[in-house]
C-alpha cells in the first residue's frame, strides 16, 4: 500500500541496520554520490521547476541556485569530518569518544524550501549513518518526492541501501504525526505551530522558530548604496520565502533619508500612510493572521492584490514602523518582500525596541547589522536573544551558510530555547549523532578547596 508509514519505517530500519556499521570511506562515498546528483544542473532544473509550479511560490532561478549552494555547502562543511567509530580521544582524561547514529529520522519539510531542505538534512543524516523519511508539505509534495527519488537513484548506483532515503508520496497531517511517532528522531523545519506538533509526538527533535530579522544600518557605513543593494538582493531572494530574509531595517537618523533614497533606487517602494493601511488589510485580513496568499509572492503581485499602484520595477515594498506587537503586525514576520523601516538615534534605545520586536516575533532567530563599529556588533550580540548576528552582509545569503560567511550551511535554523528548540545553531551533521564514551582509569586527583574556591575564599573568607 502506498505510504504505509509502518512499512516505510520497517524498510528504513532495515536499511539503517545495514548502514550503521559502514566505515567512514564508504559513508563519504555515499554523501558524495547523493550530493553529486542533487547538484547536477538538469536535476536542479527539474526540482526547482516542479517546486515553483506546484506551489506557486518562490522564484525558479533563485531555487536553482539555492539547491546547488546548499548541497555543495553542506558537503563542504562535512569534508574530512569523522562521523564513524572513534572520533575523539582525550588521553589526559582517558576518554575515547565513539560516534553512533540515531536510527531513522523523520524530516518534516516546508513548502518554502521543499528541495534544498532535503539536500541539507539528507546529506547530514547520511554522513552520520542514519536513515531518513521525508514528510513533505502538501503544497510541494511532488518536488520533495522527486528530490528523494534522485537521492535513491544515487544510492542504488553505488550499492548503498536505497531505503536510507524515503518520502511520503501523498502526505497528510495524520501521516506526518504517524511518521514522527514511529521514527527515532525528528527534524522539522517550520514555524512555532509545527514545533508544538513535533514535540507532541514525544520524540527527541530538532525544530526551528520563526524569523523576523531586523537589519541595523548605522552612520559608519561607508557605502550606503552598496548596503542597500545587499539588503535588496537578500530581501527579494526567492520572494522572501526564507526565514532569514530581512523583515525590517533599523536606520540611524543621520543616514535615514539617504538610505531610504538608496533603497528606493534598488527597487523599494515606500508606501504612503493610506497605502500602508491598504496593504495591512490585505496582508492581515482578520487583523492577526498573515494572509497565506501573499507569502513568497512578488512585491508587484502583493501590491496588485492589495490594490496599490506601484511601478512595474518595484522589487519590494516598504512601510514605516509605527508600533510593536499585535497592534501593528508590520513589526512581525511577513514572509514576503515587505520591509518595515525603523528609525533610531540612540543605539541602546533601538536595542530595547529590538527586544520587544523579537519578543513579539522572531525570538531566537537572527539579526543583522551594517556598521564599522565592532563594539556595536558585540553589544548587539550580547543583548539580542538570537542565535546569529550577521554583520555587513546580505542576511539571507549568509545566515544559513554562504560562501562569504562562516556560518554552517543549512535550511534548518535552530532558535534555541527562546523558540522552544533544543539548539540555537544551524542544524547540520553534528545534530544527528549519539556518542559512546569509553573511560579508562587515570591518575586520581581530588582537588583541594583552594583549587575550587580560591578566589571566593580570598574575598569572602571561609565563614
Amino acid at each position, binding site marked *: 500500500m502506498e505510504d504505509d508509514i509502518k512499512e516505510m519505517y520497517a524498510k528504513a530500519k532495515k536499511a539503517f541496520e545495514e548502514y550503521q556499521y559502514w566505515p567512514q570511506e564508504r559513508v563519504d562515498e555515499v554523501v558524495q554520490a547523493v550530493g553529486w546528483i542533487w547538484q547536477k544542473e538538469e536535476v536542479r532544473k527539474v526540482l526547482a521547476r516542479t517546486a515553483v509550479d506546484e506551489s*506557486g511560490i518562490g522564484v525558479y532561478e533563485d531555487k536553482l541556485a539555492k539547491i546547488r549552494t546548499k548541497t555543495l555547502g553542506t558537503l563542504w562543511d562535512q569534508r574530512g569530518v569523522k562521523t564513524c567509530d572513534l572520533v575523539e580521544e582525550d588521553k589526559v582524561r582517558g576518554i575515547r569518544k565513539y560516534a553512533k547514529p540515531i536510527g531513522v529520522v523523520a524530516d518534516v519539510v*516546508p*513548502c518554502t524550501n521543499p528541495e534544498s531542505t532535503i539536500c541539507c538534512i539528507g546529506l547530514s543524516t547520511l554522513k552520520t549513518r542514519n536513515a531518513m523519511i521525508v514528510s513533505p*508539505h*502538501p*503544497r510541494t509534495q511532488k518536488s520533495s518526492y522527486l528530490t528523494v527519488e534522485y537521492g535513491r537513484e544515487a544510492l542504488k548506483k553505488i550499492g548503498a541501501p536505497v531505503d536510507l532515503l524515503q518520502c511520503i508520496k*501523498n502526505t*497528510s*497531517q*495524520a501521516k506526518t504525526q504517524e511518521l514522527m511517532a514511529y521514527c527515532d528522531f525528528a527534524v522539522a523545519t*517550520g*514555524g512555532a*505551530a509545527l514545533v*508544538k*506538533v513535533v514535540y507532541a509526538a514525544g520524540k527527541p527533535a530538532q525544530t526551528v522558530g520563526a524569523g523576523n530579522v531586523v537589519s541595523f544600518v548605522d552612520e559608519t557605513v561607508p557605502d550606503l548604496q552598496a548596503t542597500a543593494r545587499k539588503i535588496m538582493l537578500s530581501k527579494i531572494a526567492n520572494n522572501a520565502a526564507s526565514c532569514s530574509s530581512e523583515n525590517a531595517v533599523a536606520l540611524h537618523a543621520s543616514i535615514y533619508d539617504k538610505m531610504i533614497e538608496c533603497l528606493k533606487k534598488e527597487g523599494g517602494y515606500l508606501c504612503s500612510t493610506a497605502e500602508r493601511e491598504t496593504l495591512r488589510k*490585505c496582508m*492581515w*485580513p*482578520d487583523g*492577526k*493572521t*498573515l*494572509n*497565506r*496568499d*501573499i*507569502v513568497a509572492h512578488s512585491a508587484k503581485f502583493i501590491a496588485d*492584490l492589495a490594490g496599490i499602484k506601484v511601478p512595474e520595477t518595484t522589487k519590494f515594498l516598504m512601510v514605516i514602523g509605527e508600533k510593536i506587537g499585535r497592534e501593528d503586525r508590520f513589526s512581525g514576520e511577513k514572509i514576503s518582500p515587505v520591509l518595515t523601516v525603523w528609525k533610531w538615534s540612540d543605539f541602546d534605545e533601538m536595542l530595547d525596541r529590538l527586544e520587544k520586536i523579537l519578543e513579539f516575533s522572531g525570538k531566537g532567530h537572527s539579526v543583522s547589522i551594517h556598521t564599522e563599529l565592532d563594539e556595536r556588533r558585540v553589544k548587539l550580540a550580547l543583548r539580542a536573544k538570537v542565535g546569529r548576528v550577521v554583520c555587513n552582509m546580505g542576511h539571507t545569503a549568509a545566515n544559513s551558510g554562504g560562501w562569504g560567511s562562516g556560518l554552517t550551511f543549512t535550511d534548518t535554523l535552530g532558535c534555541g530555547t527562546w523558540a522552544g528548540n533544543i539548539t540555537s545553531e544551524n542544524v547540520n551533521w553534528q545534530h544527528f549523532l549519539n556518542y559512546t564514551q569509553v573511560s579508562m582509569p587515570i591518575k586520581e586527583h581530588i582537588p583541594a578547596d583552594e583549587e575550587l574556591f580560591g578566589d571566593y575564599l580570598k574575598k569572602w573568607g571561609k565563614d
Partner: protein
Amino acid sequence: MIKAVIFDFGQTMVDSADGFRRAEKDAQEKLFGHMALSLREKFMEHYRQVRKDFHGRSNFSRRAMWRDVYHYYCLLPDEALLDTWETEYWATVKAHSVLFPETPGVLERLNTQFQVALVTNTQGQPVSGTHRIRQFPELESYFRIIIVAGENDIPPKPDPAPFRMCVAALGVAPSEAVYVGDDWRIDVCGSRDAGLNPVWIKHESVRRTWPAVTPDVPVITRLDQLHQLELLRRR
C-alpha cells in the same frame, strides 16, 4: 436465490444532496474567512482536491479534512472551533435531508420477501451512534441489521468487511444478497468485491455529476424500480 436486500443510506434512501451543498458552502465560507485568505478560486481548487482525496480514502471526517486544508496553508486550526463547525455541518445536513417518498413503501414490501439490512459509512460525525439514520426512527424497524462502517473498528466501505459482517449476521451467503447504493466506487464496487450483487441507484431527484463508467450491474433511478428487477423476482 436472493435472500437479503441490503441498503446504503445517503442518496439511496434519503436525499441529502441539498443538505450537503448547504453545509459545504457554509464550511468553505468559515474556513476561508478564518484562514484570512484572499484568493478564493485557489482556495476552492485546493479544498475540492482535499475533499476528493478524503473521499477516495473513504474518510468522511470533516474535521480531519479541514485540518489538512489548514495544514496546506501552514496554519494550525483551533480544534474547538473545528468541533463546533463539524457539529453545525451535520446539523445543516440533517435539517435538509428528506426521505425519498417511495422509501417506506419499498422497505415495507421488501420486508415481506427478504431480510432487509443497512450498511452505511459513518460520515465522520464526532460521536459514534449519531449517524443520520437516527433521525429517521421510523425506518429503523425495517432493518434486521444496521452496520455503521467506520465506527467501532469496522473499516469503512468499500472495504469488504462491513458487507461480509452484515451477510454473516443475516445468515446468508454474499451471493444471496443484493446491495443497493449510489456511490459507484464505495457501494457498487465495494459490495461486488465482497461477493454481493450490486444495484446502482442513480436517483432521479438527486442533482449530482455521476462518474462516467459503463455499468455492468443493474441501474435504477427510483427505489421502487427494485421490484421490477429480475434479480429480485427470481425468488
